[in-house]
């Protein structure tokens, strides 16, 4: 009897890209739940808008590039980018915000660089930065259900007030604050943390990047806080404000745009974490995840170039 011959190994593969992405989406469910509780149906509209735009844009580009459409739609990478972007956009933003952001993320940040596996920048963050720079007003107008008027986030508020020479004790009395950081937002941070820990437990992501990001942020924050707690916010506030946990567990861990070796990941994460602190404290924008991620993305290929296996 005759048989076909191929090269070893013949053991079936134990994982698929689709499974990896699906687990990321599942890990985002707690955060989506909290966002829904905070913002209601507007969130669902944003999610629907960005997801459908992403799938449509992905299909069109795949068709233009003559790539297998079904296979790449099923890898779910476009959906992950879309959901991450939707969660970062104020839910009351007009429809064209999320549509144009998603189009930028999928077409320009992802496919113009070669599609899945080849994009140097995290598509969701590139889309977010595109929106933030182009439409700053719409992109900072978060409206919490318990606020009558749309208000700034605590990071934004703290930054403005510190700029006006108010001390932190005074600023903290604002009704925007909850236990550690922004009222309501703290729960969202916890939800991201929960999802991230689940990803770690499922070994979808390794611990190196999240731990390095969180340490890279906490260590300078703690040092500054210990030096002058009236001018520098506490590490706890830094961790639970803005998108810290989302960034550490879901965005910085995007394997395509991060460093690829364990040592490289520690460097990448630490760089990203300290960039977050630097931009938040001294930069022009209140939250810094997206900028820090893009800058760290830029550094990733160089990090990979220098981290080589030991000569044995």
């Amino acid at each position, binding site marked *: 009897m005759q048989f076909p011959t191929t090269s070893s190994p013949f053991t079936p593969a134990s994982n698929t890209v689709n499974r990896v992405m699906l687990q990321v989406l599942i890990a985002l469910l707690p955060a989506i739940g909290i966002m829904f509780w905070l913002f209601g149906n507007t969130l669902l509209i944003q999610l629907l808008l960005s997801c459908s735009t992403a799938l449509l844009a992905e299909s069109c580009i795949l068709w233009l590039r003559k790539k297998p459409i079904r296979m790449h739609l099923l890898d779910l990478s476009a959906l992950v980018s879309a959901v991450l972007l939707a969660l970062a956009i104020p839910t009351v933003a007009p429809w064209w915000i999320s549509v144009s952001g998603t189009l930028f993320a999928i077409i320009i940040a992802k496919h113009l660089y070669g599609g899945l596996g080849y994009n140097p920048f995290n598509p969701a963050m590139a889309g977010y930065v595109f929106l933030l720079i182009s439409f700053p007003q719409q992109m900072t107008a978060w409206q919490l259900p318990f606020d009558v008027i749309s208000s700034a986030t605590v990071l934004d508020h703290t930054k403005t007030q510190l700029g006006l020479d108010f001390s932190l004790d005074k600023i903290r009395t604002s009704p925007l604050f909850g236990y550690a950081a922004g009222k309501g937002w703290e729960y969202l941070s916890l939800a991201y943390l929960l999802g991230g820990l689940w990803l770690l437990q499922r070994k979808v992501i390794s611990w190196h990047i999240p731990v390095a990001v969180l340490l890279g942020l906490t260590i300078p924050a703690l040092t500054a806080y210990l030096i002058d707690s009236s001018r520098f916010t506490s590490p706890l506030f830094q961790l639970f404000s803005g998108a810290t946990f989302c960034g550490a567990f879901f965005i910085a861990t995007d*394997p395509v745009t991060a460093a690829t070796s*364990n040592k490289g990941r520690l460097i990448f994460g630490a760089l990203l974490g300290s960039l977050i602190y630097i931009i938040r404290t001294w930069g022009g924008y209140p939250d810094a995840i997206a900028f820090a991620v893009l800058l760290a993305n830029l550094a990733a290929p160089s990090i990979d170039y220098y981290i080589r296996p030991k000569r044995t």
Partner: protein
Amino acid sequence: MTKLAHFHGGLAITADKCANPIIDSSLPGELIYPLLQRSNNYALPIVKLGERVLKGQMIASANSLFSAPIHAASSGTVKAIEPRIIAHPSNLADDCIIIETDGLDAALSAIPCFDYQQETPENLRTKIHQAGIVGLGGAAFPTATKLSTEQDIHTLIINAAECEPYISCDASLIRQKAEGIVQGALILQYILQAKHCIIAVEENMPEANQALLQAINTHSIQLISVPAIYPTGGEKQLIQVLTGTKIPAKCLPTEHGFICQNVGTAYAVYQAIIQGLALTERIITVTGKGIKQPQNIRTRIGTPIKHLIAQSGGYNKKVQRLIMGGSMMGIALSSDEIAVTKATNCILAMTSNQQENKSAEMPCIRCGDCAAVCPVELLPQQLYWYGRSGQLDQCQNYQLFSCIECGCCDVVCPSHIPLVQQFRVTKGEIITKEKQAVQSNLAKTRFQNQQQRRAREEQEQLAKAEKRKAIIEKMKAASLAKKKSL
């Protein structure tokens, strides 16, 4: 209990290992012996066409340190010496001795030896060589050559860490022949004058462990069970697990005082020295979902695979692939007409749902899962990247040649990229390029030498002409003087 070390990465693979007792293979009509040995060394046939041979009779002799003699596994006549497809990744035909068996199974009379310690290690090594023994773990390196190391060996490791999925020939051999294995280990230890002897079994073979424990009895052999993580059975990985010593990629274990021998080899040594038998049979696991009755078969070396398949109830309908060896490092065979060799530890018939789905290869997402499982701590994702873009220097900077082709990275890759295949191709490219570089250097030196020679010759010719001219001048001057004086 000794504290064990761990090597980096590895995989815990669950694959049903068949635990049935060993059965004896029936006599095939034809036995096939490829003359090709390791690294392009050939054994030399010493029989003639039509000659009658007996079981245990040498039919081909070794011509170098990297080959071993071949012995007939049953009586019969030499029918042909002709090319047949052999068990090699190329699936090409090469010269084989074909013996037509006569059904009598008549054997040469064996000369047993009762006390090996009366013999010198040198004599024992010669006997092992004459018995045609090679490493039975799969690499088939001539055992006598391996035992002739110049280095001081302090530890002999008998490797029964049968870590590849599906293979259970070693475990079944231990269950049946633990006494012989221990004797073989002691002989090997005596030859090497090694201080320590360790037998390493895997945790998931308790019966084999028990049998060895009884056989070792009061002998000073250490029995250690190691975790069932692939590739623990790799020489260097096993040494690391047992002793914590990391052997560098470019070194042999003997340079660090270790020597590993497969458990089947130890038994073959026992048979050769104590019973005076040449290596003519071994245990082979015939298994996989494509086989009706998976089992371990004591098989005459040279038996065509289809004979073993027939004895195992034949193929299932869905059979798709025939592998020699395990599912991680085995060779895909093109035909079941191919005969088993001394290196064959397993015949694996796989069905479609067992085998990998290579059609759906996706781009690399640089997740690094491959690096996490790599037992030699490489970065396969980087090697893939550089190999694919032809950056061969970078591949060497990232230690491509340390890769042991164990296949762990392939199995965990979510994008289903055939990484090992790519690494083999890249290694081949680098080797070809280096050969070309050597050749072009040779050509360059040859050219330069030629240039120099030509220049020298020209110089010499010029000098000669000069000389001649001078002589003529002289003669002319002389004749002129003569004329003048006249």
